[in-house]
């Protein structure tokens, strides 16, 4: 994508300024809610409830301090990170060989298998809620990180296979053939030649697995109660139990955006490809 050059996408530059007003309006619509979240997070609660102000009068980081010092808050983040990392690891390691198979070979039922994976990405997690609960109860896995990590494989493994297949299909098949002629075994070729070739794709896939597991709430909340409770559940439960501590809630929200916002710059040119399941 870095190769694009030349003027604006649409060469009719006469309406340049008018069109940019539209773009600015959209960005205001886009960023105001996020600004409001950040503004709320640095206000004391009394100020939030006492009156309406566009800008915070007093800026305080007390809400953030609370989150970083109160175990019931920060363990939520640690739990989320644990199961998300676990899920990303599982998804990537099983999806890499499978995506290679889909991009390089035809085999019995390949199209149906590929479609079946897609249906799992599309299926509403609510459908799997009860059986998951029952399945993991049977194995005594409720309220563990691995349970949530495995449950999220439902949509993340298909996602990873589809994205990686998209990247792998961009690598010419001649490279494989040359390597095999040169006497490389499949594992050696795959690990030392092929994987380095698609490392951008692996990074992007890892990012998307991380993200979709990070943003999911329904399964994560249902499969955990105390020990593996994710930050998302901490936030919803705090709301219902302890009244409305808006400032704290906003600060917790800001902190959940940080991981994604930190990485997004590095994958900015691949975001579309990742969201489109590698089909762009």
């Amino acid at each position, binding site marked *: 994508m870095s190769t694009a050059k030349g003027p604006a996408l649409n060469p009719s530059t006469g309406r340049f300024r008018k069109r940019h007003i539209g773009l600015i309006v959209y960005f205001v619509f886009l960023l105001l809610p996020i600004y409001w979240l950040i503004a709320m997070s640095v206000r004391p609660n009394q100020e939030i409830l006492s009156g309406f102000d566009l800008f915070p009068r007093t800026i305080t980081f007390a809400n953030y301090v609370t989150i970083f010092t109160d175990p019931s808050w920060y363990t939520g983040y640690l739990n989320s990170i644990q199961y998300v990392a676990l899920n990303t690891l599982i998804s990537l390691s099983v999806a890499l060989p499978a995506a290679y198979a889909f991009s390089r070979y035809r085999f019995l039922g390949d199209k149906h298998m590929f479609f079946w994976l897609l249906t799992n990405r599309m299926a509403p997690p609510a459908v799997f809620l009860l059986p998951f609960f029952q399945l993991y*109860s049977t194995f005594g896995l409720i309220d563990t990180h691995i349970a949530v990590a495995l449950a999220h494989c439902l949509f993340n493994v298909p996602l990873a296979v589809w994205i990686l297949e998209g990247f792998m299909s961009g690598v010419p098949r001649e490279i494989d053939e040359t390597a095999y002629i040169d006497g490389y075994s499949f594992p050696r070729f795959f690990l030392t030649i092929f994987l380095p070739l698609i490392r951008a794709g692996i990074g992007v896939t890892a990012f998307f697995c991380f993200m979709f597991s990070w943003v999911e709430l329904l399964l994560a909340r249902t499969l955990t109660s105390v020990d593996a409770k994710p930050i998302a559940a901490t936030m919803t439960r705090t709301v219902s139990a302890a009244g409305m501590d808006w400032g704290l809630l906003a600060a917790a929200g800001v902190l959940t955006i940080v991981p994604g916002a930190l990485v997004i710059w590095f994958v900015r040119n691949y975001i579309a490809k990742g969201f489109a399941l590698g089909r762009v």
Partner: protein
Amino acid sequence: METLAADLEWMAWTGPTAAFFAGIALILAAMTAWQTVSPTIERRGFLPMPTTRGDRLFIGLLGSAYIHLAVIGFTDLNLWIAFGVSLVWMAVVMKFG
């Protein structure tokens, strides 16, 4: 909720559902065997796109599921009638789809 779900029997099998899944498994096994003996050729029937044998099986099964739902939900007909209609539908799709 926790205690109730934890005490449920593993997967809660019943005779009819077991038979249903066994049937599906048998069909899949048969289709695999058929595919190995004589590989399918993609062709164009009355369906709007070219299909292989497996595609037609999927369309047939999905259509049968909808036929059953329609009969259960919106009529008082016997379920065997739905089953019969589904068999005819499967045969038509497999042969002419």
